């Protein structure tokens, strides 16, 4: 068994004591400028509205949409949009970032036709296809703003999503 060295004993040198008191003051003072250094930036431009994009389940990038529960992601107007095959007849579209903490729903989202809800795998929040919050995240947080949804037309094979 390792013979432990003694844990650090409190230093007693007066110079050290002075330095640490100075350090405590300096670190508290440092909080003031830190508060003004806060940054919150998005590196993507503000999404444009009124743009549309066609999709076809026969195309490789949309082939997951051929089955109910399948998902695909499209970039439109500077934002990532999630397409989900909700039923034989319907595809819905929602912003790809979970309304809770922005987990990418194309990876962690799972659609249940039976429950009519998309579950985010990060904290199990559930959303209906119109964006309504079906259940809140299990970590105790409360989502107040439902995720943005987009208009989709779909004929069973081909469709259009509009921002």
């Amino acid at each position: 068994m390792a013979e432990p060295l003694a844990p650090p004993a409190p230093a007693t040198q007066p110079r050290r004591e002075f330095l640490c008191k100075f350090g405590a003051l300096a670190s508290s003072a440092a909080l003031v400028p830190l508060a003004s250094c806060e940054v919150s930036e998005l590196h993507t431009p503000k999404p444009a509205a009124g743009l549309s994009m066609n999709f076809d389940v026969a195309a490789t990038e949309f082939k997951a949409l051929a089955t109910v529960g399948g998902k695909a992601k499209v970039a439109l107007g500077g934002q990532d949009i999630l397409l989900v095959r909700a039923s034989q007849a319907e595809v819905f579209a929602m912003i790809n970032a979970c309304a809770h903490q922005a987990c990418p729903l194309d990876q962690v989202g799972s659609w249940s036709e039976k429950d009519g809800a998309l579950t985010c795998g990060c904290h199990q929040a559930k959303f209906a296809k119109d964006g309504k919050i079906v259940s809140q995240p299990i970590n105790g947080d409360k989502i107040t703003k439902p995720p943005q949804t987009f208009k989709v037309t779909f004929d069973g094979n081909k469709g259009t999503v509009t921002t």
Partner: protein
Amino acid sequence: MSAAARLLLVLAAVVALGGLPSTASALPRMTLMAGSRCSNCHVNPQGSGTRTEFGFYSMAQNGATTWDKLGWQAFHDLSDNRLFDGRLTLGMDLRGQMAKFGVPRWENGVKIDPERQVFPMQQNLGAAFKVAEWLSVAATANVAHLFKKYAGQTPFDGWVRIAPDPELPSVRVGMIQPSMGIRHDDHTILLRRNPFQPALPLFAPNWNELGAEVSYEGMHWLSIEAGAFKADNLSKSCAGSVKADDLVFSGRLTLWPQSLDLGINTWLGGSFLKAGDLTVMGGHVGMGKTYWGSLIGEVLITKTAAKQEVMSALVHAAYPLYDWLVFEARYERSMASKPAGTKTDETDMTAVVAGVQFVPLPNVELRPEYRLLKNEAWTIGQWALQLHVWF
């Protein structure tokens, strides 16, 4: 060299290594500065949680001032965490923080910024009972789980430990966190997250699984842990790669070269974890000296079911200006290939954290921090404050 010059040197090294000074958290530095194993100070041989007699006493007098000097002798009387002739050891770890939760995003053409919140981290109440010299039981309840849950987290851990002789391997059976890499006592460590899903931990804080682990610390220069567990909880944080009926296998080997003459303590090790389609391999290295500080490096390589590969690295430096005032800095970078079938090739995230562990009174710590987190989609920089009260 003066204390101030040494501080400048440490900060310069961190700037050179990581770009900006950062701080943070993890108490693995304690083993490097004190030259002692986690198991000398904690009931859990992995570290964290209920303290042993040695661990309790080594922190009981550490503070900028003392309860005695404030005239609160009642707190001084709480100078032992053991009852019944030392058979029962009690522990408490309460942590909370004030920070912005989440990341900025566009919503209906409007930029939404994350809001500042005050929320609990772990609220642990622990106890350990020595049934016989070779047999002990320990458990910790995390009360914070009632208020805020993280995917994969459990509300408690607990085990029976059979340790026939310090020179022989010991076995723990129960709800245990599999030993993998460095156990950081911090929720914000990027290394334990998937940078591609920043809100989702790879290994959640207070993650535990039902299983058994063998530990060997019989030689002063070597420690080995190996375990097998169920995967119920890991399947919640790594949903796409791990299923609840999978098994978790983990192992870690650490060499502990130590120079008693120079007072330098080091460790160097590797670890692995395999569960379902998730494979994690890690390497860790550290060097420290009492009063001088510590430098830690860790790398984790994770492979998931979606053929996604994540490589994360951490550099952490700590400088104790005083026992109760420790400057810390951390730089982390994670690079992930996007899962198969998606278009972009790579994503990456950088975290820089800088702060101070300030212990105004024994058993109370304030940790102001500045945290910067950045990826291709957003940058968030914020100050945060952690409060930690323990016994």
